[in-house]
């Protein structure tokens, strides 16, 4: 559906994308996971024909976004990271407008959008600017789907949305599968990676890894320890960094995730060291790696 080979894009002094290669298969949910400034939006805009690029080869539905941009624009749905509907128009007026510019009507597309639209329909006379964050995203999604696109591009659709709405939103995205739509979604949230069929990890304009989410989380090649102590994560991380066999450490929820330079079982060694450093109520256990662990270790290598 999408094929990218050796793509590079430079802004005046910054290299936003460095020699990227990707393949997106038809009907999959492809997640582009990475922190702010990694190059997610730039890649998204190149694929939607909104930006030109410097080197490489890009094909969307077999067409070039440079020469065949009209074809691509006819067959994609795009939801930018920033809410981009008209805040002074009502929900209904916004949808009618977007239906109109794609040469269709709300009625014709009702089948595809009804599950989402029914949730915002009670507010259809309300101005879009007065909607909550979650509602705005649903409206924007409806607008992006109004013409039955073949590929749906979602740029950070859940950024700034509350946890409940985020969950609902991902549920909707997964439902869209039944309509033969390929979905290309970017997010800075690692926990959303598991909801995609395949993911690419991106940082500083480089793709670090592309695989199934479960394969990526398994790809962690070291023993991972989850450690907690009474004095809190800040003190704990500080002490661990001073440890002779330190390899990596970062906060993970209420615990910190730590890897050691030695391959042997060193649980009791670490505990002893931390107690000598003056920390109390230390809890330490081995834990399974997540995508976030993999991502951070890849970022550090990078």
């Amino acid at each position, binding site marked *: 559906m999408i094929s990218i080979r050796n793509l590079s894009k430079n802004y005046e002094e910054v290299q936003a994308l460095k020699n990227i290669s990707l393949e997106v298969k038809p009907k999959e949910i492809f997640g582009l996971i990475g922190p702010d400034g990694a190059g997610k939006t730039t890649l998204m*805009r190149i694929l*939607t*024909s*909104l*930006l*030109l690029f410097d080197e490489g080869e890009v094909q969307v539905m077999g067409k070039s976004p440079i020469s065949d*941009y*009209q074809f691509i*624009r*006819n067959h*994609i749905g*795009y939801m*930018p990271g*920033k*809410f*981009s*509907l*008209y*805040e*002074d*128009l009502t929900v209904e*007026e916004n949808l*009618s*407008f*977007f239906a*109109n*510019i*794609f*040469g269709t009507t709300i009625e014709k597309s009702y089948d595809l959008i009804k599950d989402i639209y029914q949730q915002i329909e009670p507010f259809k006379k309300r101005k879009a600017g007065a909607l909550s964050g979650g509602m705005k995203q649903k409206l924007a999604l409806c*607008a992006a789907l109004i013409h039955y696109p073949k590929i749906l591009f979602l740029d950070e659709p859940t950024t700034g949305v509350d946890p409940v709405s985020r969950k609902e939103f991902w549920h909707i995205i997964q439902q869209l599968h039944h309509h033969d739509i390929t979905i290309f979604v970017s997010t800075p949230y690692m926990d959303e990676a598991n909801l995609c069929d395949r993911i690419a990890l991106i940082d500083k304009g480089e793709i670090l890894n592309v695989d199934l989410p479960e394969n990526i989380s398994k790809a962690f090649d070291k023993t991972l320890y989850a450690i907690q102590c009474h004095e809190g994560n800040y003190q704990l991380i500080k002490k661990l960094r001073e440890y002779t066999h330190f390899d990596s450490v970062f906060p993970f929820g209420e615990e910190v995730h730590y890897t050691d330079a030695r391959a042997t079982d060193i649980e009791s060694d670490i505990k002893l060291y931390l107690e000598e450093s003056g920390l109390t109520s230390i809890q330490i256990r081995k834990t399974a790696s997540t995508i976030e662990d993999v991502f951070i270790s890849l970022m550090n290598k990078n």
Partner: protein
Amino acid sequence: MDRLKGIIKKEFYHIFRDKRTLLILFGIPIVQIVLFGFAISTEIKEVKVALLNQSKEVSSHQLVNKILSTSYFKVDEILENEEAINTSFKKGRIKAAIVIPPHFEEDILKNKEAKVQIICDASDPNTGTQIGAFLEGQIQSFLYENAQKTFGSSPPIQINTEIQMRYNPELKSAYTFVPGLITIILMLICTMMTSIAITREIETGTMEVLLASPMHPSIIILGKVIPYLALSFSIAVFILFLGKFVFGVPILAHFGLITFEILLYCLVVLALGIFISTVAKTQQLALMISLFALFLPTMLLSGFIFPIHNMPLPLQMVTKVIPATYFNIIIKALMLKGATISEILKETLVLAGMFVVLVGVSIKRFNIRLG
């Protein structure tokens, strides 16, 4: 076509839902008309004068009556001595003082020469000169009539000058400001509003969605321009209507020709607005450019307020690139002189040329992509 209709409808929603837009669209024309029509008056009308009549003879009273026989002057104060003149001026109540010396009648009859002093307040030089000239004219005609009455004949040698104030016999200021206002207001609305409307879409990010749609960018722009064209045209008609029926300014040229010229000018300034939006990336910058780089120079240099031929050469060159300069000539010629197309052909062609250049440059600069 349906897409165009949709985007026009959407634009009208924006216009009618935004109080600031409405204020600019309808507030500015109304305020300008009221200001120029009623507050800023350069006409001589019921000017207050003070009178120091030291003669108190029949002739002097006849002279005073002659001066007051028109509606231009009104005696505000009868003064008793020369010192009072100063006080009167300082109080700011009067614009001119007339001093008739003693023995005025005797001087006329015996010496065939009399003196009358006119003192004008020249802190506003234009009005001062105008009042002086008016008063002098009144006194001359008194002299002429008086000579005929007393001696039964005209003075020995005389050149009768007859000044005809063509196209504006009563020297009404409405004759300049109504055409001038159409020029200024159309410029303001078309240029400022379109450039802001387009940059707003870029700023709020909606342009990104519009560009990612199959709609051609020219449709997007056309859809933005048409509502403002319609609004500006109706505002122009409204001002013409007010000019004719409230201020009595004639509209002599053919209606079709006036419509054509107004639309042409609207197109030029709309294209200018589109051009600004391709240069400015934010609404604020677009507003600044429209106001300071266009509105003020247009107001001051288009010949609306100050005559162009009195300006220094560099400024005259600037006036040559301002569309309003040409339209101001056109609309005045049409309304006041009833000109036909052949008489304003040069200006019309210049405007048409400006339109072509601006549209060409804008198309070249307008991006089908972001950034």
